[in-house]
Structures are given as C-alpha cells and as structure tokens.
C-alpha cells in the first residue's frame, strides 16, 4: 500500500481494524476510495476470515463502483478480485436474508416485492373503496368555500382523491417502520374520531395489507421489516449471517432509517465490527422516506464509537468550498428560522494540501455567478444558452432541476433551441420508448381494428416520419384496416390504397410494418411471455432493453397466475406505465455501470439524483422559495391548498396523531414540524447542489411562471439572496 497516498482523515479510517467506527465526511472526501482501501487492507491481512466483509450502499451504481475499486486494489496485491467481500444495496441484502427462509415468515418462496406501479394500483383500489364508503368523512377534510363554483368544488374533490393515495402510501411506510402490524390496528382505532386522518390511513392499511398477504406479495418496506423479523426469530440463521459477515461497512449512513440501523446492528452484533460512513449535511431523503439524519449523528456520539472525520476534499475549487462553508456557517448563526439553525452540521470542507497529487481545481477567475429572471421560461432559456456555450470548453456540465415538471419544461426549451442534452434519470425517456412500444403493440394486438391505436403506434414508435405525412395519415384515418392488413388479393390492396401512397417511401415502409404487425397478431395465440420476447426481438432491442423485456416476460407469467382472466389488453395497460413499473430493475440495468459525465454534454438532472456526482460546471436552477423555503410562512409544496388549514399537510398530521397515541409528544404542531423538516432538508439539498460543482457555479431564479391558470408570481428563495450577497461581496473583494 506504499503507493497509495492517503489524506488526513483517510489514513485514520484505513487504520481501522475493528469495533464501532463513525466516519463523518464532507462531499468529495473520497469515501468510496477510502472504504475500498480499508477493505483491501483487511483482506490482505486476512482479518476478515473466516467470513467476509460486507459493504452496504444505497444505489446499484455505487455497488459497481465499489466492486471495481476493491477488485483493482486486490489485483494489485496479487489477490483474487472477487474474494473476501460482498457489496450490495440494503434491499438486496434484505432480499437475500428473506430468501433463505421465507417459510419462517409464513411467506411463499415465490414472493416478489411489489414494484411501485402495482403498489399504487392496489392502494388506489383500496382508497377508492374507502372514499366510497366514507364519503362524508372524505369531504370533511376539504376546504370548501361558500363561493366555490361547481368546477372548483369538483377540482378540490379530484385533487384530494388523487393525493389521498400518496398520504396512505407514506403512512403505510411509517406504520411499518414503527413496527405496527395489522393485528394492532383495531387497538389503535379505538377511541379515534371518525374525522381522523390516522383512522383513514389505518383503515386503508389494514385492507391493503390483508390483500397483500392473500396474494403472497410484499412491498419494499416489508423487505427490511421482515428481514429483521427473520433474524430475530431464527437463531440459526442469525448466527449464520453474523458469522458470514465479520466486518460491515455502511455507505451513505446519513440516509439510514431506524430499521436499517437495526438490521446492521443485528448483523454486526457478534463481531462488533461496524463502520458507518456518511455526511449528515447530505441527508436529502428524510421527508419522503423513513430515513432519519439524526441517527447517524447519534451513532457517532454514542459511547464506544470511535469517530474519524474526513474533511478534506479535492473535488471543488476553493471558491466553491468557501461558498459551501459559508452556507454552513451562515445557517448556524443567521438562519431566519431559529429551529433550522442545526440543519447543517458544523463540518467545514478543507481543500487538499499543496503537495497533493490531485489538487483542487484552480480556475483563473471567480467563476460563481447568479441570474434572476422575470419568468421561469426566461430563466431556463438563459441557462440553456449559457450551458450551450460551455459545451465547446471540453468541460462536464450539469443543470440541476428541482422536479419532473420543470425537467419537462427545460427539455422542451432545449429541443426547440436545438440544443443537445442528456437526461440523467433512472429510466430516461428515450430508454423507456422501446418498452413503451412493447405496451403499445400489445394494446394494438388486443384491438387490431382500432385505427387510432394503429396510427398512434405508427407515428410514435414504428415509423415516426409519418407524423408529418398528412396524406398518409388522412388515408389511414379513413380506411378499413382489414383491407390493408388482409386484403383479398393484391388488386384489392391497390384499389384500397392510393397509388401515390403505395409508391412513396412511407407507403412502402408502412407495408413492411404491417407485415411485422401481422406476424405479431398471428403469434398472439401463443403464451404472452413468448410474444413479448418475440416483439422485443423484432424491434431490435439492445442488451439493456432486452434484459427489461425478459423481466417483463417473467412478470407476465406471474401476473397471469394471479389474474387468470387477464389477456393482452390488461397486460398492455400494466405496461403502459413502464417507467414506474420497472423502476428497480431499470435502475439495476442502466445504473450498474455507474454514471460517467462526458465533457461537452449537457446533463439534465434533478438535485436529488445529482448526489454523489460531480461536474466542472453546475447550474442550480429555480431557487424559488417554493423549492427552497427558509421561513415557516413560505409556500410549501407539501401543503395541499384544497384542504382545511389543520389538514394542509395530511401526512404530517396523521404521523403526529400516531406519535401521540404511541406516547411521543412533539412541541410543534404537525404542520410546523413538517415545515421545519422540509426547510432543513431543502437547505441540505442546496448544499448538495453547490458541492457538485468543481469549478463553475451559477445560481438562478425567477419571479413568475405561467401556469394553466395564468401567470403566478413567486419569490426567490431567501438563500438566493443570501448567496447573491455573498458572491457579490466576494467579487468586489477580488476586483472582479
């Protein structure tokens, strides 16, 4: 290991040989590298024997990253690449544990965790039923106004109907995290008023859970819960796992939940070797998952935990480091909401030493700026054009977007401006297209006489150039499909189809596509699984798409067992929402090789998804008070405008009700508490955004946006002003 140069903090971590270790680290500190070196060291010294080192991380891309790095280090030492350690996501670990003995949990061995779309479908059914049976209660939460017109009343009802699913979903996660089994539901319901959000969510939970059990399904939350249950119940299995993993390292520990912590605690109980690495300032999942940033902090503070901090980073330029540190210090002292002054840990980033072989970037001028635009569209257009100029400079570029709606808007702008980009998401649109085509074809096969479906299939997937061919589309809209698919003879075809169309390139291609579709229709009498694969092959799916198609085929087998009356139409409806349906699997397939930013490419990415990545130039867009609230009076996305004041954040209210019943009181009202949590998390999200940038950083914001209901004014976030003032002062100090 003499060749590897370790920085302050990294060395201490690599000296670890056992016990409980907490490693708070800053962005760019080289956590993956450090853990990889530590792992290789321990394997070289055979300290892991007779077991293995287990590294638990959050994303599949990180799994690949770790394996590669550790493998390279082991190879350098003359050791086999894959021996002595395992890296997996927490969900993979939980699956592994449960699959050992599902029978102990009274689960069938064929259980498959529900994917999001199926979970939503089941929940939707249960919530619809609940609404039907409890109409008065359902409406009692809504803020009706005497002056409301009928369309406004309907809009509020529709909105609440749509959102109730999300509330139930979050609460079900919360129930499971708190260990509330459906056996406890009757007790918890006792004494609850009818007009109680907790009662509503408990009712839905019970029915949802009963359904899952009847169908032999488990959801993602269940994975962790049940793996813990299994380890607690089965002594032999627990011992086996404890002996198997003699060291456990957890990456991204700030995103851990109490259950995850419990799982790792059980696994490390025998060896007593647990190292947890994280950055509390990058905890950005807690408001919509059950992760809790305080857990990692508590772990580091507990007696018996050795703490080694890694505070040095070579990723960012000094100016960007200073900006990030300023945000930390400012928030500690001057945050307008006092309760949020501990949002960021007082953990400052230091640049590396002068002699470090990988020094911090040193741009020649001050390269942090800001833009305030009148409208959102104007802001995004400016960013797009600015980013385009950056493409020539051979730098990696990322535009960070707060949410999916704005992502669609900027993509539209960039398409209009003819600016190429890459959407960084688990299932970017262009990749989803192939599998959406699958669903669309199945839908057409189920309704082969449907002209609209045929035209949609043709123009969207099979032959996009026909979108502009008005003559052809006009003909297709008025003809009988059987006459072009199955004409009695060639003469009939020539009579049916105008000569100009028949002889045109689009026409010829159309006939070829018709032949392909005919083969699909004729093959539709075979098993649906085989048909899906046949279609995938005919559409020349690439390797990743084929992997997903095979997963789809296997799931079809399973879906048909559960729903023996389903045929193509029902399967097509399932596949229509492919983007969500195969989230987990798509993540695996597309992220297993990690993400590499290419110089000159503009990457469009959400703030959340940017975590763990780095780019030379970063644009932090849409820094409005809605996206980055700083005060309790700001507008919060989590507030439902259509509900009464006391129920504006129904999830927070239901959680608070439950906490109270379980004896946990909170000083703040649930709405206030939820707002404080949101402010804290969004500030950390901003910190994450800033620390993605290596050299160049641009903040931007707008003062209004155009919605379906007209122009809406917004205020820039308080942080935008704070940072604006900061960088202006810096510029003037540097004479820029």
């Amino acid at each position, binding site marked *: 290991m003499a060749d590897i140069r370790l920085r302050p903090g990294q060395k201490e971590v690599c000296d670890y040989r056992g016990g409980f270790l907490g490693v708070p680290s800053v962005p760019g500190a080289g956590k993956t590298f450090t853990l990889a070196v530590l792992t290789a060291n321990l394997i070289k010294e055979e300290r892991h024997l007779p077991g293995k080192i287990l590294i638990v991380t959050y994303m599949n891309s990180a799994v690949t990253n770790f394996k590669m790095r550790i493998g390279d280090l082991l190879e350098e030492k003359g050791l086999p690449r894959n021996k002595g350690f*395992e890296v997996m996501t927490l*969900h*993979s670990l939980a699956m*592994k544990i449960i*699959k050992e*003995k599902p*029978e*102990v*949990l*009274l*689960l*069938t*061995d*064929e*259980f*498959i965790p529900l994917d999001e779309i199926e979970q939503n479908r089941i929940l939707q059914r249960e919530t619809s039923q609940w609404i039907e049976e409890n109409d008065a209660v359902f409406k009692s939460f809504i803020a009706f106004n005497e002056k409301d017109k009928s369309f406004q009343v309907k809009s509020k009802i529709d909105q609440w109907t749509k959102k109730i699913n999300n509330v139930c979903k979050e609460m079900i996660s919360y129930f499971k995290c708190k260990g509330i089994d*459906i*056996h406890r539901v009757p007790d918890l319901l006792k004494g609850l008023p009818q007009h109680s959000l907790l009662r509503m969510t408990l009712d839905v939970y019970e029915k949802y859970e009963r359904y*899952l*059990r009847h169908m*032999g399904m*488990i959801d993602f939350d269940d994975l962790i819960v049940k793996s813990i249950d299994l380890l607690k*119940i*089965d*002594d*032999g299995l627990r011992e*086996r796992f404890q002996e198997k993993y003699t060291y456990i390292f957890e990456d991204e520990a700030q995103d851990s939940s109490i259950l995850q912590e419990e799982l790792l605690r059980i696994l490390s109980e025998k060896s007593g070797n647990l190292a947890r690495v994280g950055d509390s300032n990058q905890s950005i999942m807690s408001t919509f998952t059950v992760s809790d940033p305080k857990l990692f902090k508590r772990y580091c503070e507990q007696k018996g935990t050795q703490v080694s901090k890694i505070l040095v980073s070579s990723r960012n330029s000094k100016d960007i480091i200073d900006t990030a540190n300023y945000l930390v210090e400012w928030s500690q002292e001057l945050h307008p909401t006092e309760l949020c002054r501990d949002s960021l840990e007082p953990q400052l980033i230091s640049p590396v030493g002068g002699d470090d072989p990988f020094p911090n970037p040193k741009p020649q001028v001050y390269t942090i700026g800001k833009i305030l635009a009148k409208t959102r569209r104007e802001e995004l257009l400016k960013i797009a054009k600015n980013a385009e100029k950056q493409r020539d400079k051979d730098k990696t570029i990322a535009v960070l977007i707060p949410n999916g709606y704005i992502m669609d808007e900027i993509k539209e702008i960039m398409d209009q401006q003819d600016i190429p980009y890459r959407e960084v998401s688990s299932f970017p649109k262009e990749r989803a297209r192939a599998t959406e085509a699958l669903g669309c074809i199945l839908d057409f096969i*189920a*309704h*082969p*006489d449907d002209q609209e479906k045929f035209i949609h299939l043709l123009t969207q997937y099979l032959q996009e150039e026909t979108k502009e061919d008005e003559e052809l589309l006009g003909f297709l809209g008025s003809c*009988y499909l*059987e006459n072009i*698919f*199955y004409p009695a003879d060639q003469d009939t075809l020539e009579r049916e189809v105008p000569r100009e169309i028949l002889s045109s390139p689009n026409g010829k291609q159309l006939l070829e596509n018709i032949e392909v579709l005919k083969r699909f229709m*004729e093959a*539709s009498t075979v*098993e649906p*699984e*085989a048909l899906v*694969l*046949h279609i995938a092959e005919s559409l020349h799916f690439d*390797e990743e798409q084929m*992997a997903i198609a*095979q*997963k789809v*085929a*296997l799931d079809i*087998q399973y879906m048909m*067992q*559960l729903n*023996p*009356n*389903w*045929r193509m*139409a029902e399967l097509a409806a399932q596949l229509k929402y492919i983007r969500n349906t195969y989230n*987990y*699997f798509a993540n*695996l397939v597309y992220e*297993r090789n990690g993400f590499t930013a290419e110089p000159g490419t503009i990457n469009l990415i959400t703030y959340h998804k940017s975590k763990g990545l780095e780019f030379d130039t970063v644009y932090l867009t849409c820094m409005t008070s809605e996206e980055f609230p700083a005060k309790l009076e700001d507008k919060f996305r989590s507030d439902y405008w259509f509900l009464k004041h006391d129920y504006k954040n129904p999830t927070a209210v239901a959680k608070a009700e439950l906490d109270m019943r379980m004896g946990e009181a909170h000083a703040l009202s649930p709405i206030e508490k939820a707002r404080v949590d949101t402010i804290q998390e969004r500030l950390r999200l901003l910190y994450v955004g800033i620390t993605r940038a290596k050299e160049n950083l641009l903040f931007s914001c707008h003062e209004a946006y155009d919605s379906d209901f007209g122009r809406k004014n917004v205020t820039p976030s308080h942080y935008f002003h704070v940072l604006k003032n900061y960088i202006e002062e810096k510029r003037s100090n540097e004479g820029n």
Partner: protein
Amino acid sequence: MHAGKITLYKGITGSGKTTLLMNQYQRWMDQGVASHQILVLLRNRRQSQLWKESIQPSYSAKLKLFSYFGFVQEELRKYWPLVQQEIPWQEYQRLEPVFMTIETSQSIMEQIVDEHRRRGKLLDVGAAQDRIAMELIHNLSKAAMGSVALDQIGEILYGTQGEQGKIPPLVYREIQEICDQYMEETLEKGVLDYGMTVYLYDRYLRNNKDYSALLRKQNAFMIVDDLEEAVPAEAALILDLLEGAKGSALTYNTDGEMTRALGACPELIEETIFPLCTQVELKECYTRGKHFKGMGGQIKNIIVFDKQPVETAIGCIELLEAELRSEMLNRLGEKVLTLLQDGVKPREIAVICPVADSVTEYTLRRQLEKGGYGVESIARNKRAIDQVYVKALVTMASIAHPQWDCYTNPEDLAVTISVILDIDPIRCHLLTKEIMKQRPYQLPPEQHIDEVVKRRIGQGPLKKYESLRRWLNDYMTGGIYDIEYFFQKFFGEVLIFLPHGEKQGIVCKQLIDSAGNFRMVMASLGNEGIDINRRFIDAIKKGMKTGESQEEIHHKRYCEDVILVTPYTYLSFGYQRKVQIWSDVLSEEWASSDVKALTNPYVFSPKWNPSQPWNDDTGAYFRKRKLGITVNRLINRCGERIIAAQSLYSKHGYEQEGLLGIELQGTCSKK
C-alpha cells in the same frame, strides 16, 4: 420366513441396474412365469413406458407395471368393499371409490381455504389461496406416505419449532382445522386424492388378512426399481410381498434419493429391507465419461460436508459468467451454437435449468433457429388454456351456458371466432364486438349484425358464422347442460373438421376426461349443477396443465434435438448426453428448500424424531444433500463435458449466491 431369492442390486447412476431387472424379468418369462404373477413397481410413467418398449413377452399379455400409487389405486378399486367394512366413520357406502385428479383436489381445498380466510383465519400467512391449498394437500399426502395419522399434521409441524416457538400455534391449529374439513368433505364420502388413497390402503386394506393372503398369491414374483425412492408406506407393502415371494429383484441407487421431499425414506429401506437381501454391488458406470470418475462424489462431498477435494483439480467444468441473466442466456445460446458448429450433434447436448421458464425456452430456441437447429423443451408442461382449441372449447362453453355466469375475455372470444371461422384477427374483432353488444354474450342472428360490419367481414365468413350460430342455438335448446357433454359435442361436431382438429384431439380428449372426472367427483361430494361447471372452467383458466401422453413421452425420450430440461426430468428420463450445460448455477433454485410456509415434508418421515426441533442446520443439511445428490447423478449421466453458466443478478434483479455456483467457482476454470 422369506421364501425365494431376494436379490438387491446396488450401484450408482448408470451402473446398469434397470437393465439387470429387465433381464431378470425376461428370465422369469422364459422359465414360464406368467406376466400377471410378476409385479413390477416403478417410479413413474416414463419408466413404465421404457419397460413396455424393452420387454418382449413371447405371448401378448398385460405387464403388471405400476407406480406404487397406481398399484394402490387399482387395489382399492378392486377391493373397496373390504375397505368400507373397516371404516366406521365413513359417511355412506359407495360401490367404488372416486379418485380425484390433482386439479380437483386443489380446487376443493382452495375453496375451503378461501372460506377460512374470509373468516379471518391464516391472517399472518403471506400466500395466495392456491399456494396454501397446494401445501396443505402436500401435508396430507406426505403424512399418508409416512404412515402418520392425518389428524396430527398441525401438531407435528408445530412441534418442529422446539422451544423457539417462532410461529404461534394458532396457525397450526387453523391448518389442522382446514385439513379436517377437507377430509370430512372428501375422504369420509369415499372421494380420494393421492394421499388419502395411500392412507386407506396402508391403514385398512393392506392389513386385512384375507387381502394380504390374496396379495401374496397374486404377486409371487416382484421387481422394484429405485428402492431408495420408496416411501414408508411402499416399503411396508414391499416387505409384505417379500414375505411370500418366490423371487424378487430390487435395485438401490447408492448415489442417493431424489425424492425425499416426496416422502422417500432410504434409511428405512436400509434398515428393514437390506437385511433380507442378497446384495450385489455394481462397480461400473456406463453413462459417464471416464474423466468424470469420482468427480460427482467429490463435488457432492464439497457441497454437503464442506470437504475439500481430494484431487487437486476438478477442472472439467467450464464456467460462463455474466452480470444480467439476459446476458447469461445469450452466452449460453452462443456456446450451444459453437458446440454444434464444432460438430457436436444436437442429440448430444442438454441444457439443464433448475426451473423451466418461458424466457429461457424462447431465448434458446431463437438463437438455435438462427443456426438452423431446434430445441425441445422437455421440462414444461404447457397450460391447457394456451392451446388454441382448448381456449375455443372453454370460450364456447361459457357462451353456450350463460347460466354458469363465467367471465369471457373478449380476446378469448376473438381467438375462438378466428379459429372456427378462419378469418383474420381484424375481421374477427369486428364480429366479436357485435357479439359483445349483449350481456351475457350471444351470437346474434345475421340480420342483427351491423350492415357495415357485415360488409367488412364478407359473405364467406358470415356463412360460417351463421352455421356456428345455428349449431349453438340447437345445443342451447337441447336441454343437456353439462360441460363434459358440451366439450364432446363441440369437439366432435365442430372442431374436428378444422385444419388442426385431429392433432389437437389428444389435448381435447384430456380436457374432456378431466371434465368428466371433475363432475363425477363433485357429484360424489354432493355438489351438483352450475357451480361444478363454472369451477371446472375456473380451474382451466387458472393454469391447469396438459398431461403427458405416451407419444409425447416417447418423443421426448428419443428426441434428436438439443433438449431443455430440469435436473429431475433429465434423470427420470434416463438421458445420457455427451454435453450438459447447467444454467443459472448461482440461482438459489438449484438448492431450493422443500420446507414451505405451511409444510415440511421431512418431518412426516418415520425416521424423524418428533422431539427434535427443526433448525437452521437441519434445513441447510437437507438442501445441500438434495443438491449434492442431484449434481452427482447428473455428472454420472454425462458423457464428455459440463459447462456451467451463471449470472450475478437473478431474473428479478437481485444478487444471487446460490450454493452450486459458489462451490463451482472455487473449483472451475473460467472461459
């Protein structure tokens, strides 16, 4: 007192045991022993067919070839009155027992499970009705085979927990209640499933003095193949027969049992039958490449006992690696093509996968087709409903009987119309929509069909449609409304005249027989009328499989193509291919546990100590043992080469670390 010679041939897979038995049979025949005096107990229909093809009697006579279950069923049928007089609790007397198919028993059990679940029972069980039903039926049959009292099932399962008490006793009480109700509704009425057939025979008939004497007299000679697979109840029968037999020849595979989860108890055989035999050890293996000698045993020891290999290199297994399963399947297919192009014949290659699935079959088939080769999927019995003619039968049955209130999917209707009228999918959808205009669906008279639609469909198909409609109308006014009758009539008067009518005849006949059996069973249980028919249709839609005909068995055995097969099927057919490609070796399915949420087949064995808790080590031992035996046997049936293919991620995208793959990684070369 044991009369006559009892010879036990002991040897590994491929040592020629079955051949020796066949030779013995032939010798007896040559000595003048009548075939009806020789009872041959085999494991399954495939073995039975092999015997029929191999033995050439000098005069035509029926060979007494039976599986244990088949024999027991036959005996119960013949001597039912003897059984009835022994059973005081039976509800009413019946002339002969009614035997259920697996689907029928499953359907009845499912209904009972459903009733209990609606009442809030089995709340903690995370499994669908059909899975629970299947596991409870397994419990009953394992208990019967192990000669365990059927009212003790819940208690025995609960007892496996020892002091740990992982699962509350309530679940086991509920299981027993369901089993008791099932027996009340079936056994007590003389309607028998697999397990109950064995139970009644073993408990009541076999011990009847008169029957026992007759049994020995009628079966003076006995042959039993694969004794290691015999269940305790079968062992008891064999012991009875050995007592007075004039000659017996038995075989025992020393590689170990494949069907312990189905009740096999080799320890009992060794304890009770071995001492009575003259044992002949067979040393050779005729189905294995020389370079594999000892390898199977070594790998088995590594897997089961974690022993390190005695020899330094077990390098004869090549490893193909990939991350995703789809990549693995591609590499596997490419490997097969390479082998074929290098001159290996298709009939010399077997692709062995732990579980048969459509994706593997499709992918392999497509790759080989590109090279002009075929692949035969031996493992999978297809769902009946996926057969087009079965779909047509079921769909038309639903339409012909609106009173059954069966749901008809529009697509099934469209496929049916397409097949019968021989029109393209688009036109048949147009017609289907017309049929769907009324609820329940009806075939409207031509004059009620939209004029535009009529024009689009054309005169030719309309004529055929009208003919079909008249047939249906005649049937509906005929007055007989029973599914078996409908199937027979519709097949015989309509489907048989269609282009593939005759070919589909076997499948349709199976369906008709199943329908008949179902109706008979239900009638015997006191269920009459509409419900039976609808339930049968539901059973088909839920995935009832087609059975294997004799022709199919013959075709599969002598298939000239590359075969895709599970380990058990490969071994039960007695294949001995030159090249074996083991797919998905990292999948846990190679060493899957037979212990499920509500069943544990091992604890119903007489060799299981009831006071012993079932723990992690025990479970691990049985899984490893099963895997070790399988791998050993496969190697002993491989002529030249083994290639193992693995993917890091399972078909559902989770990392897998199956025992077989892990062990092979340590011992194989990677290519």
